[in-house]
């Protein structure tokens, strides 16, 4: 870390430095005068050069949000830091510094050109988010493992790479290795990779690359598969029937039920359980299917509503545009006559006519808007009614006999059967007629009738609770969706209305001021 000029005090990036740099590098000549007059906002600056400033730490750059090019070369920076907010950065130069590890670049997703030349970096990593990287310079560093180059395979747009001056370059196979493992690369160490080298490299590393590719493909396939499953689940969730297309719910009933596991050892119980399960799963599947169908219906309903809404808005917009266009013609004609005339009297009358015309335009546009608001209100109310009805029907049907209630019935029925078997077993055990082996903790249950009944009852209670919870989940989700949708429609409409009214007012104001200015100008003349 000791440098020749270590005696010089490290510099800090402060307001003064930045201001100076910005002013120096800002617009020149005439534009510069204008800029100076007005002052430059840091957040508008597109490129910044801070080289040979003896900077130790990157700091105070958070204001430069629209920065595209940043040069911090030839400083004594030790750590990449403080660049998180510069998300628009395309070009970053950190060459000739004292950086040891690559870090802090995760937010710079737009970066295309990165230079880390002449630093102390030993390993290339932590750059996964730089998907647009095209030019990467990391020469004169301390990279000593050739396999580290494989890391660069993920950058599909990488065309130019500079690795010269690293320990790996001493390797005889360095060139061939890099060309073979980075087939899209065009320039290596600022030289065009010729076809011959590429062929040699390909031939040499054919098999290992094949293996690598195979592995990569596998990972990719796996990833895709996972994504597909997640997408499927998302779809089910949107229909509020996730995990109902299989024995998931049933399994969850028993997952926390200790007693049931014990009771399963009793003779006859496994069979009972089996039939119970098939029936239960069947019902769940029914609910699932029904849910999907309902979801489609809701979707269609919403889609058609939005379609109609869009049509109405477009129609209204068309009318509005036409009004404005028509007005524009009249207005320009007025302006021209006013400009060309010398008679103040005449100008005055024309002016007032024009002002009248403007207010008429305002009236017409507002009428159009009010009309639309009325029309939309009716339609939206209609939609709201329908969607609430739909959700209501869905909830009713899920709760109703053929579905969730059925589950409950089934559970009750199962409970009775289980109780019966348990009591029978108890009696047998009491009479010592029970000859099958039971685990001790199970046998402990059958010490007296209360314990058995309690155990079975507890199991039953847990099951019912689970079913209830699932049902509640479904209903709350659906209802909240319903209110959210309706609210969104209402809010959107409100926003739209406000925006339009604001626009109309603004436009009319602009016209009015324009006209007034003209008046003023004429008087001056």
């Amino acid at each position: 870390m000791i440098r020749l000029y270590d005696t010089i005090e490290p510099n800090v990036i402060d307001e003064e430095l930045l201001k100076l740099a910005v002013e120096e590098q800002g617009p020149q000549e005439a534009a510069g005068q204008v800029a100076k007059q007005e002052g430059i906002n840091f957040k508008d600056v597109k490129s910044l050069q801070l080289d040979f400033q003896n900077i130790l730490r990157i700091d105070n750059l958070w204001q430069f949000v629209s920065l595209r090019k940043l040069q911090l070369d030839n400083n004594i920076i030790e750590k990449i830091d403080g660049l998180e907010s510069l998300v628009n950065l395309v070009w970053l130069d950190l060459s000739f510094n004292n950086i040891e590890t690559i870090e802090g670049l995760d937010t710079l997703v737009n970066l295309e050109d990165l230079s880390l030349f002449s630093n102390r970096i030993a390993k290339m990593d932590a750059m996964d988010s730089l998907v647009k990287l095209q030019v990467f310079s990391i020469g004169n560093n301390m990279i000593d493992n050739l396999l580290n180059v494989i890391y660069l395979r993920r950058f599909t747009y990488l065309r130019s790479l500079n690795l010269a001056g690293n320990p790996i370059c001493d390797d005889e196979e360095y060139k061939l290795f890099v060309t073979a493992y980075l087939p899209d690369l065009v320039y290596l160490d600022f030289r065009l990779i010729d076809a011959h080298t590429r062929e040699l490299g390909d031939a040499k590393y054919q098999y290992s690359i094949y293996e690598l590719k195979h592995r990569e493909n596998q990972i990719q396939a796996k990833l895709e598969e996972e994504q597909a499953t997640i997408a499927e689940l998302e779809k089910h969730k949107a229909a509020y029937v996730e995990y109902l297309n299989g024995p998931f719910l049933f399994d969850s009933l028993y997952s926390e039920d200790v007693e049931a596991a014990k009771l399963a050892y009793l003779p006859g119980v496994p069979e009972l359980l089996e039939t119970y399960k098939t029936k239960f799963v069947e019902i769940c599947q029914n609910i699932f299917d029904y849910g999907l169908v309902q979801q489609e219906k809701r979707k269609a309903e919403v889609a058609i509503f939005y379609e109609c809404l869009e049509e109405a808005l477009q129609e209204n917009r068309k009318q509005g545009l036409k009004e404005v266009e028509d007005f524009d013609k009249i207005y320009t004609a007025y302006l021209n006559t006013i400009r060309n005339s010398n008679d103040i009297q005449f100008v005055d009358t024309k002016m007032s006519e024009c002002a009248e015309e403007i207010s008429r335009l305002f009236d017409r546009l507002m009428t159009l808007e009010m009309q639309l608001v009325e029309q939309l209100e009716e339609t939206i109310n209609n939609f709201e009614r329908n969607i609430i009805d739909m959700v209501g029907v869905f909830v009713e049907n899920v709760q109703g006999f053929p579905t969730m209630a059925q589950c409950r019935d089934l559970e009750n029925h199962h409970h009775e059967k289980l109780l019966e078997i348990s009591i029978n077993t108890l009696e047998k055990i009491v009479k010592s007629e029970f000859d099958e082996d039971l685990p001790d903790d199970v046998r402990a249950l059958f010490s007296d009738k209360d314990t058995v009944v309690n155990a079975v009852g507890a199991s039953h209670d847990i099951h019912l609770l689970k079913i209830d919870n699932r049902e509640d989940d479904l209903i709350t989700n659906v209802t909240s969706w319903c209110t959210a949708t309706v609210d969104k429609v209402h809010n959107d409409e409100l926003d739209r209305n406000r925006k339009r009214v604001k626009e109309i007012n603004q436009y009319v104001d602009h016209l009015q001021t324009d006209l007034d200015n003209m008046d003023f100008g004429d008087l001056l003349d």
Partner: protein
Amino acid sequence: MEVLKEKVEEEEAAEREAEAEQAARRAAEKEREDSILSQEELLDLEQKLSEIEVHIPEIPVAFTKSTIDTSTLPESYRTNTPKEELLIQVADNFSRQYAHLCPDREPLFLHPLNECNIPKFVSTTVRPTLMPYPELYNWDSCAEFVSDFLTMVPLPSAIQLPEYLFSPTSVLKYQKGNCFDFSVLLCAMLIGAGYDAYCVSGYASQEMCLMDLTREMCPLLKKPKKVVEEKEKVIPKKYAIKPARDLRSKFELAQQAKKENELKAAEEKKQKEEKEKILEANKPPPDPMHGLRIHAWVLILSGKREVPESFFIDPFTARSYKTQDEHFLGIESIWNHKNYWVNMQDCWNGCKDLTFDLGDPLRWEFLLFGTEKPYLSLMEEEEEEDLAEDDDIENLDKEDENKNFDMPCSWVEPIYISPKDFETRSPQGKKVIQYKQAKLEKWTPYLNSNGLVCRLTIYEDVDCLKPVEVREWYKNREDTLEMRQMDKISNWTTEYFKPGHFLALRVHTYKTMIPETERTMEFYHQARVDGLVKRTETPRSMTEYYEGRADFLTYRHIDYGPRSKKFSLSTAETNPRPMLKITERFNRNPEKMADDDVAERIFVVSDERIQLRYHCRDDYITVSTREFLKRNEVDNKGNKIIMTPEMCISYEVEPREHTKKLLFQYEMMMDLKNEERLSKHQVWESEMEERQAQEEHMRQVEADLDYLAPFLVQLPPGEKLTRWQALRLKDECLNDFKQRLIDKANLIQSRFEKETQELQKKQQWYQENQVTMTIEDEDAYLTYCSQAMFRIRILEQRLNRHKELAPHKYLALEEKLYRDPRLIEYLKVFV
């Protein structure tokens, strides 16, 4: 010819310019001094030229036996084989019985005489031949070829069968024929191509027999039928908004609609009546010989060559008709190369009820038994009747001892059309068809040097006197001109080009070719780098439309001011029209925000103003605008003002922060100034291109110079030529040309002499001073000698060549004059 003449002119002009005076003086002197030899040569030329007389081939008006040279025809044309004799006997026999059985019917067309006065059975005249040209494989192209290739000659008598039927060999040779000749030739070609074709002898309407198309619409003018698109019914959607309430009185609306309907009905009625009137007026006068006019045509039966339905072809016009067509009034008989059938069906209703089941002996009486019958679809009942009437047929057959008597081979040579004739098609390569209010002229490609192949003149009136529109089709032109349409009333000319024009021009509409006048040019924009689609010009403006440009420009409009007057001679290039305003429109660039994407840009050059209008955002109804004023460069204190807020007036739909900055506005203004310069340059380029196009056009026009123009000018304009005038015109033109040729010879001669004299002088000088000469001088002398010799030799060659070519040129001009459409009617009569 024109090219040659042009050359002559060019050479002459060049020579004359140089030594016009000298030549004149010398010519006078030469007449005295010229050696006898050159005089003789000139005289020779003169003599030669004056001796030339043009032989115009005689056009026989009628095509009769006497005009045919029978000497070269092969033996089979002049004699009959025994088998043919037998056949003729059989036919005679058949004819007698037919006359006996059907006394009220006309005699049959069985064995007319051929060009060598030998009776030949009609079927043997049909010699099926497959043409070697792939273009002639289908019936439509075949029929078209026959109708183009032959000139129609009416029958000697409209209601009598012709006495002669010539072989296709003679017909093709003289390119003339009546309907029977046409039919036999076409039939032979169609059978050769595999069609089930028959010659038909029967009766047809007057128009058909005389090939009179003046009542027919020209097929080129027929509009394609409009396909009526069915409108899809829009089902009102569930949430469609209800329309705003209509506050007008329904009663009033109903009343108004009622009134409008009444008016409409009245108008329709009027129109209908007018239409009927016109129809009435255009009806042809009744034909006194209706139903008696004899005609021959071709029948193609379904079955072979995937013909789905039987139909007729009229060989004159090459049109196909349904067998029920009302133009065809009756059929006597039909034949092909194998057999002959007589129609036994009643033709009271034209050909509408006829069936063409040739295997049905009740309807079609065959001449030869045993040859294969095309159809045998007899029904049971008919069979019984058949038996009842079998006697008649047996009677016929009994005489015919040889039951399996085959049709003898055709006596006609295979049809041969030379490739040259095939290319030339019509006699002399030209064909004229008169349609209803339209005249169609066709030429063989390459016959006209300007590539003209077809011209359609549309007239206003039925008598074809006032042309309304002329359409010309071209082929194989360098500038890929395909069609030119000239509106004679509004004087607009529209040219259509095929892809490949050097400016990728597609359509060009103009009144005159003078630059900066009204015109519209459309382009193949895919072929152009700048994506120009269309350019419209008026004297004061130019509008351009673009498509598919990287800068999204779609429209540019330039307003010009009047030219500033300068004292110097200013051409359009040195003194361009001042631009007043440039308006440019752009398409939406999806990569930019609507507020940053300029939709319209107006450079008001005269005012130093720039107006910008941006694209409209998706859900807004107003658009951002910005206006820059470039004036006020200096403030009242004399300081230079770079930018003030007043110089940029903007309205923004959604006010944003950075656009308010002066720096932003200043930079934008600078950019716009640059853009303005660029736009001006592009406009200039467009103008240059325009000029280039006009030059190109002029070059094309120049190619067809009018050689008669200087002589026609002398005549009073607008009057019709008299025969005498036409003759004089021709003579004048020829004399002038002769004089030109002689002048040119004189000129070459004089130069030749001058060179020779100079050389002789030099030689003399050399011999005198040879002793005292330096080496350099000698070298110079030698080079001079070789150059002079070269010049002399070239001049000699030119003179010889001129002598050789002059008569040809003269002949060519003379022939051209005879063929000139303005003179033809006078000269033709004279010769």
